Each structure stands twice: as C-alpha cells, then as structure tokens.
C-alpha cells in the first residue's frame, strides 16, 4: 500500500474549489461507472486502488496528505458535488455513498448542510436505506464540531419517515446532545417515543443484561455531554399514566447505576430553583411546541407543582419526606 506525501500531489495542489469539484465529480464518475480505474484521478493516480475499503478511502488518504488550504478546498468540493446528486436515483445514491464516506473521513462540515436539504422521498429501498444510514452516521460523527448544521441535519434525518427507526434513537440523542447540549430537552422530547421503544421496559422483550447495559451506556454518555446534569430531570419526568414511575427506565437506571447523580436530582427537585428551570428553560428550548400546540405533558406552567410532585414521587422523595411537609414549589 502506497501512502501519499504532500510532494507527491503537486498536480492537485493550489487548485480552486471549482477545479477540485470538477476533478472529483468527473473522477468519481469515470472510476465508478466508466471503468477508468486509477487514471480517473490524474495527479493522484498512483494512490488509487491502494487502501482497503473503496475509492473513498484512497481519496481520503490523498486529501489528508495535502496542505491545510487544499484540504479545505476538498471539503467544500465534496459538499458541492453532493448537492448536485439526487438521492432517489440508484446511480446517484452509489456516487453519494462514496462522497459521504470521503467527506466523513476528511471532516467536511459542509456535507451536513447539504444533507439537511436532501430528501429521502421514495419508499426505502436497499440503496436508499444504506445511504440514509451512512448519512446518519456522518451527521453523528461530525456532531462534535458543535455546528448548528449538525443538529439541523440530525433533526432532518430523524424526521425522515420510513427511514428513521427506534434502534437509532439512542445514537441520535447522544449526537444531538453533543452538537447542541443546551437544548437537551428539545432533543429528548423529539425522540422520546423512539427512545422508549428501544430502551424502555417491554413485556414482550426479556429484561436482560444487554438491555440494562444499553440504558447504562446511554445515560453515561448523556451525563458526560450535559452542561448541567439537572437537565436530566426532563428525561426522568414520569408519564401521566398509572405505573409510570415503575416504567421510567431513565430513573431506574439512574437510581441503580448513577447514585450520586440520582441524589443530586433528588436535592434539586426539593428546591424552588426547579420551578423556573422547568418552565423557563423548556420554553426557551422548545418554543415552537409551546407556542403552537401545547400538549398536556409539555404544558409545565399549567401544572408545575403537580409535575414537580410527580417527579418527587418518582424519585422516591415524597416517601422519605416527613408527614406534613410539602415541596418548596408547592408552598410557593
């Protein structure tokens, strides 16, 4: 396997965005669909067909050997090339797969904006589904760049019906929290149903170590990303149905595996501080829902004290509370 160095790539250095976009698009088309082989990429032909994987891996090695300015040009070119493709076409989907694999390896942030505009309209086929999953992985991987484009892209992808599935919910929540930790509540509410399907207690699925460790890892990852662990209270909010406290897997995981955090939450719910945090932060985090259609379980202003009481019940606080005492927020 040949590894390129900067001096090997003079022919493709110092080019403009347009030139590199053309080089990339024509090269990919010739390599993938016209059987041109390594000659499709003049100036880098000695480094094609070298890596394990595919031509995207060859090109990633080429780009990584270039200088910073040229790398940036390639990142933009990758996004521009992707924009011109129609994901619903099988031909373009194959092309897009390679571009996404390349873009992910060279950290082309511009891909996310393009992905957020791309539609997966047709019913899922093997090709479009594979492309969707790759797009999801790329968006997830680039979430650590903390760009609003990453969160927008992930929101777009989780709303693609027929493509998004509950098994991706945990990874989506982690990526969204990584991209935009302040809006954890919004992310959580957007994914709540899918999360419950994937992580919740299910009479039809045996409770085993695997499911428990799945929950443990999700909570562990989220805790590591949250700027303020109190935001977890949103996830611990019990459902307005009987036996909800029992079914709250967030809470039970915290209680079982993250005792310190659990205790901190307990202390937090006892304080009046919790009230404004619930109402104010949620409104800021989730203004569209509050404004458009306040659903009963999101209208926290209306029955704040009731909600806090429910959280306290779920956390086991009210049982431990001396008779006659009430929550601070109730007194207020």
């Amino acid at each position: 396997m040949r590894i390129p160095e900067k001096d090997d790539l003079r022919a493709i250095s110092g080019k403009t965005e347009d030139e590199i976009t053309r080089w990339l698009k024509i090269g990919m088309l010739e390599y993938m669909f016209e059987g041109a082989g390594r000659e499709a990429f003049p100036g880098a032909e000695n480094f094609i067909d070298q890596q394990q994987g595919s031509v995207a891996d060859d090109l990633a090695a080429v780009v990584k050997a270039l200088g910073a300015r040229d790398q940036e040009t390639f990142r933009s070119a990758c996004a521009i090339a992707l924009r011109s493709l129609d994901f619903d076409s099988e031909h373009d989907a194959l092309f897009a797969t390679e571009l996404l694999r390349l873009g992910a390896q060279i950290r082309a942030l511009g891909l996310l904006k393009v992905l957020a505009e791309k539609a997966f309209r047709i019913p899922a086929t093997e090709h479009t589904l594979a492309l969707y999953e790759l797009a999801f992985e790329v968006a997830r991987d680039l979430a650590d760049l903390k760009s609003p484009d990453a969160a927008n892209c992930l929101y777009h992808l989780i709303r693609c019906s027929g493509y998004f599935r509950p098994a991706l919910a945990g990874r989506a929540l982690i990526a969204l929290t990584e991209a935009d930790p302040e809006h954890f509540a919004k992310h959580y509410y957007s994914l709540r149903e899918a999360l419950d399907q994937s992580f919740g207690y299910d009479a039809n699925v045996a409770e085993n170590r695997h499911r428990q460790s799945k929950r443990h890892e999700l909570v562990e990852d989220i805790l590591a990303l949250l700027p303020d662990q109190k935001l977890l209270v949103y996830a611990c909010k019990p459902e307005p149905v009987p036996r909800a406290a029992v079914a709250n897997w967030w809470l039970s995981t915290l209680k079982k595996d993250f005792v310190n955090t659990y205790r901190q939450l307990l202390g937090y719910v006892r304080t009046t501080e919790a009230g404004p945090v619930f109402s104010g932060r949620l409104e800021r985090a989730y203004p569209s829902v509050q404004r458009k259609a306040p659903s009963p379980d999101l209208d926290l202003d209306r029955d704040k004290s009731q909600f806090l009481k429910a959280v306290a019940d779920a956390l086991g606080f009210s049982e431990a509370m001396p008779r006659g005492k009430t929550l601070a927020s109730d007194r207020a």
Partner: protein
Amino acid sequence: MGLHDPAATLDYARATYELYLSRKAAKGKGPSVRDLEDCLCDLRYRKEEPGRRRKINDDIIPLSNPDTPDLTGQRLATVVELKLLPMLMDRVDKDHFKIDISPGGQPKNPARLARRLNDLGSSGRRFRLARGKFLGRKLVWFTTEAEADRLTGSCTDATEMATHFCSGLGLGHHLPGTWLALLRIPGSAIQRAGHYRPVFCDAGVHRWFMARSSVPNGINGPWGQTAALKSLADGTTPYDGCPERVSREMTRSHLRNATIGFDLLGRVELNSGSNSASTRLCEDVWTRRR
C-alpha cells in the same frame, strides 16, 4: 520472484512495459517508477465496477494452486481496518453490537467497545455480511485460524496486539493510530469464492510480500508465507511469519447463512514496516538461491 514458470514472468514483464508505454504516450509525461509498478498491478485486475466482483486476469500468470487445499470445515483469519466493520456488517447485527466506530475508523469509546465485545464471548462476536458488500478489495489475504490463535497467544502485552499481528503477518503498511480487527471466516465461504496461493503480481506495491519461505529450499506446499517484520528488522533468520493464501472478493452468497467472527485487535502503536525490514527483504529476494 517466486514464479514457477520463468517464461510467464517474462511475458508479464513485457505486457507491463507495453501498458506503461501506452499510458505514457497518452499522458505525454515522463516515466515514473510508480507508474510502472501500477501497470504491473493493473494487468492483474480488471477495473472496479459497482456491484461486481473484480475479475482477475490469469491469462499470463495463472492462479497458483487454485482451490487447493479444500478449506471447507476450517476457519481462516484475516486482518481488516476497524473502520470497515460497520460497512461490512448487516444492519441488524450493527444495531445488536452497537459498533460505534466513526467513518474515519476511530471507536467513539474504545474501552467500552472492547468491554462489550469481550462480554459477548467469541461465540457472540459474529456478523452476517451486508447485502451488496464485498469482503476484500480485489483479494482477501488470509492465514489459518490456528496461526491467528498462535499469534494471539504469543503476544505478551494485550495493548500491543495490533502491532504484534502486523509484525507476524507482514502488514507493514498499517500506520500507527490505525485500529484493526481480526475476522474469522468460514472455510466453506472461501472455498466458494475461490482461493489460491498469491504471487508477486497479487502483492502489487506491497513492500513486505514474500512469494515463499525465507528458509532456503523450504517447502510451503500450496501456501504462501508472510514475512515476520520484527525478525526481518532484527536480522533474525528465518523470518517466516504465517502461511497465507488469497481469496477472491467475497459476497453474502458465498457465506450463505454462515457468519463471520471478529475480534478487536486494537490500535497499531508502532509501524512494523521499518526501512531496515523492507531493505533486508529486498536484498534477500535477489540473493536467495533455490
């Protein structure tokens, strides 16, 4: 170069040079050793076409010991970059294992990945090859499972496992920082895909390829031999690594319902392909007499 038929070698060299001249004329630029090497590789394999296995040109250099021995019932081992695992795995298995690896090849949480895979046990670490995907690019280079287990057993420091495998299997091209996995492939699938003993034109520009054992007059039978890179660099003799053969690209249909086992080897810490190793191998190829 380890070929049985010198005439075929000469024919191959001639064809390589003709291809090189035609490319040079088309490009109108000066000669380069790399271009010549590339022509040598390109003669062996047809160009990549989406959704199809690469064809191997065996008209000048025939496939050596094709499909012998019969590998049905055995398990064979190959090393791949970790970043390929999510691409190769069937979607259901990917969800099950939660193989959290970035498309760039870094595990999101290496300790957790290692722990989770360890918890699964060797019988649990198996996946089905995704539809439409190929295992191998041009070829799958493999050794026997027993050899892979021997390498595992001889590694004294688990954090050095990836480096140890690179050294034993002659994988000097994996740079430090690359994460590797070991795949255990059913022999029946390799048998269906087609396999043979590799020769020089299969190795392409790989600097650490040996066509045969470093032991003078050593007998390999239908197996090739990897170079043990540490021994090469240290000046030890012999420097045989493990027996090896190659399989053509493998699809789901070759596996039928069988699964591929996998182990995490970890991160390459040291580049095993030091200059001294490749120089010594290069010199030995020219001086060895058989």
